[in-house]
Each structure stands twice: as structure tokens, then as C-alpha cells.
């Protein structure tokens, strides 16, 4: 990806050709670490299980929908996406694409240099930090716009909240032929086209910046794109868990009450 003249700036310890890797006996050097970590983990989990009870609410009742109804925490990032786009995109296409793209990483980055070294090259860590901040700024701004862009068009009592209703309202007014019976209407622009375009464009622009600014090679490009996934997962999960309360509205964590 980078020009062939770009030097591969591997960081960390250098292993010279023909240099033998220093070996130690598995017993006790590795087995002892494994034993200590296992004991510490069992202890920590036992303590937690002693003092923190697993939740158990009342008997399941299909008639009584709690507000908010939330999925387990590792799906709350996807549930957050669900608030901003079509459910097929948020719930199925994005996670499937994410898993396939993750699995593809080693088939795109075939260069074995940089194996076994945190961030591989000198540019690895700066690119990681930049990519995370870049991703978070984009996503926080988009979430805030989607939450707080609320207008009421003059002469109506329709309340438009978020990006998609505004686009749909504008397009419906301008090109009303799509809203005839049997026609799909305009909501797909804001629900499918725009979010899909953003989810492709944001990492794409990131890749372009990283290539220009750092003359990134394939590994460094992978670091940027993986960080986009990694940072998104963290941000969306935190927002979905701690900042979404009654009716899935955005609020401060201390305002989020238990579902009722």
C-alpha cells in the first residue's frame, strides 16, 4: 500500500537473522504464571459471586413491556445503532459484515513482519490513538445531532426529531410522487442509504488520512481500521448501557433509572 521505498520501522526488540530465541522451561516459568492467574481469577469471581447477586426480576410477562427494554450489554452497541438506522442494517448486516471483515484481516495483511510486537511499528501506537479519537468524535457528534436536532416545521404540529425524519420530511415535500400508495416513500434515504454511506465513508476517510499523514503500510492500515471497529464497539456499548434511559432517550448515567 505504501510506496516500496518506505522503510519498515519495526518497534520493540529486534531479532537478528540466525539469532536464537531465548527459551525457558514451561515448568515452572509458564505453569506458575498460569496457576497464579487462575487462582486470582477464581478468587475474584468467587468474591463477586458472594457479594453481588445475579439479577432476577418478576416472572416473564409478555403483556408488560419494561421501559427501556434492553438486550445483554454486548448487544447494546447494536441496539444503539438500531436507534439511528433500519433494523436490518443495525441488527443483521452490520454485525455479519463486522465478523466477516474481522476474519479477513490476516488474508489482507500477509506481511509477517511485526508479528509478536505490540503495535508492530513506530507509527502503530500514534495511528491507534488518532483512529480512536477520530472515530469517537464522529460518533459522538452524530449521536448528539440525531438526539437534539428537533424542529417543528412552520404551519404544522409535526415534531421532527433526528436526522432521518428531517430528510424524509424534506424529500416527501419536494418529491411527493414517492409517497403515493404502493410506493416506498423516502424514509429509506435516512434509514438505509445515509447510515450505510457513513459507515463506509468514515473508515474510508480514516484510511486515506492515515495513508497520507503516516504513509501507512498494510499493517498500519489494518491497525487504523481495526481501531475504528474497536473504538466504535466501546463507545456504542457505553452509550447504550449508561446513557440510554426511559424510552431510550439520551441522558446522563445518574438519570438512567431501572426499567419499569
Amino acid at each position, binding site marked *: 500500500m505504501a510506496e516500496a521505498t518506505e522503510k519498515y520501522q519495526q518497534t520493540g526488540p529486534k531479532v537478528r537473522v540466525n539469532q536464537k530465541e531465548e*527459551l525457558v522451561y*514451561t515448568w515452572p516459568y509458564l505453569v506458575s504464571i498460569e496457576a497464579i492467574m487462575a487462582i486470582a481469577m477464581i478468587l475474584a469471581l468467587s468474591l463477586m459471586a458472594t457479594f453481588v447477586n445475579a*439479577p432476577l426480576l418478576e416472572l416473564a410477562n409478555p403483556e408488560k413491556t419494561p421501559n427501556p427494554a434492553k438486550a445483554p450489554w454486548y448487544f447494546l452497541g447494536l441496539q444503539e445503532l438500531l436507534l439511528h438506522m433500519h433494523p436490518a442494517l443495525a441488527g*443483521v448486516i452490520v454485525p455479519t459484515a463486522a465478523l466477516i471483515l474481522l476474519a479477513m484481516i490476516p488474508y489482507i495483511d*500477509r506481511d509477517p513482519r511485526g508479528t509478536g510486537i505490540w503495535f508492530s511499528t513506530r507509527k502503530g501506537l500514534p495511528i491507534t490513538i488518532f483512529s480512536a479519537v477520530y472515530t469517537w468524535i464522529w460518533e459522538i457528534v452524530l449521536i448528539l445531532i440525531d438526539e437534539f436536532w428537533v424542529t417543528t416545521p412552520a404551519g404544522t404540529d409535526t415534531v421532527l426529531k433526528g436526522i432521518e425524519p428531517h430528510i424524509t420530511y424534506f424529500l416527501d415535500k419536494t418529491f411527493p410522487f414517492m409517497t403515493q400508495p404502493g410506493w416506498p416513500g423516502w424514509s429509506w434515504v435516512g434509514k438505509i442509504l445515509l447510515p450505510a454511506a457513513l459507515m463506509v465513508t468514515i473508515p474510508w476517510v480514516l484510511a486515506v488520512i492515515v495513508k497520507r499523514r503516516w504513509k501507512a503500510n498494510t499493517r498500519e492500515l489494518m491497525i487504523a481500521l481495526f481501531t475504528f471497529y474497536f473504538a466504535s464497539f466501546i463507545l456504542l456499548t457505553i452509550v447504550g448501557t449508561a446513557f440510554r434511559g426511559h424510552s431510550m432517550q439520551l441522558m446522563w448515567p445518574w438519570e438512567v433509572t431501572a426499567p419499569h
Partner: protein
Amino acid sequence: MGLWAKFKNTTLYKSIYRNEYPDTPRNQVLVILNSLVLHLHPVKVPRRAVRVSYTWGLGGLSLLMFLILTVTGVWLMFYYVPAVPDAYLSMRALETDVIFGQFTRNLHRWAAHGMVLAVWLHMVRVFYTGAYKPPRDFNWVIGVILFTVTVLLSFTGYLLPWDQLAYWAIAVGSEMAGSTPVIGREARMALLGGHTIGQATLVRWYTLHVLLLPLACIALMAMHFWRVRKDGGISTPIPYEEDEAEARAEG
């Protein structure tokens, strides 16, 4: 001779442990080779690969939590009835009637969350250390599948208490699956075993949770660990000549 030393001299003891305490190089080799569990390791490992700050032990911790979940899970099965509403009643019974019932359920719950987290962090570690690179490329793919199976294991278990939290989390989840393009209705039907979340869903998810997914997980883990060895053990920096690379770049 002490009693323990005498016992160590018996045929019974020698039939179980074939080597002396591993404090000599010879016995440090034999202890790994002669033990079913330890022989997953090589006899020697690179010094840099055993640094905690390199791996954070996350793969091993994932396995540990899988084992904790297996033990507590089998124990919970003694008391759990996968039926509506008996499932919920057995959860209540675990809290009030069964000795260590609450503790074991708590342990199962927290280890389950811990395993999802550990597996995910393990993937993050492997990525940032470049340990997915050839020849470990296919093992990374197995790892991504293992991550998926782990999440499915956790998600199928989420329904089993049959309380409001379980029911509505699964309602949200299966709504998402129902919006799959083209096969949405079929996907939802297959997941729920009907049009709504009910007895059929519970039995289906219970079977997945206690039988099919753990078996899949074990098979994949076996492959994953075996390949770690076959692909050259824990990743270490490959030999790399900076001058040579430079020379090639200039030439």
C-alpha cells in the same frame, strides 16, 4: 522414610505419576510430556512469550472461565426445569431452597460476562500484537468463530431464568434477527420455534445452551489450541534485518 515418601514408592503412585517432582531439567521435560493437561504446552517456551504484559493471559483466562461455566452449569442443571413457568420457579428455588444455590448461579452469571469480555480482549490483544499474521492466519479465523460461539452461548443462557429481564432482552434480540433481509421471518421462526417467545423457544435455547453450543465450543477450542502449537507456538518477533530491508528498499 516418611509416610509420603513411602506412598510415592508404591506401585499405585508410580502408575499415576511416572516422574519425580520437576526440579531437574530431565523431570521438567517429563512433567510436560507425561501430563494430559500440561502436554498442551511445549516443553520450553520463549522467554518473551511468558511475559504477562505480552499476552495478559487472556486466552488462558477464557478457557478457565469456560471450565468454571461447565462445572457450575452442570450443577445448575440438577435444579433447573426448562419449562414455562417452572424455569422461573427453579430460579427462585435456587435463591431460597438450595444450599449454595444463589452463589453458584452468581458465579455462573459473572463468569459468563467475564468470558465474553476475556474472549473479546484476547482478540484485541492478538490483533494489536500482530499475532494473526501468517502462519497463524487460519487460527485467527477459528478465533473469530469462537468469539461468535461465546456470544451465542451467553445469549442463549440469558433467556433461561424466564424473568422479565430475560424475556425482554430476547424479545429485543429476536426482533433484530427478524429484520434479516429476505429470510427475516424464517430466521425468527427458527430462533423462537414459533411466532412468539414461549415454551418452544425455551426448550430450543436450553438445548443449544447446554449441549450443541458447548460441544461446538469444545471442538473449536481443540482446533484452536492444537493450531497454536502447529503454527509455531505463542507469537514472537520474526528475524528481521533492518539494514537488509533498507538495502532492498534503496536497490
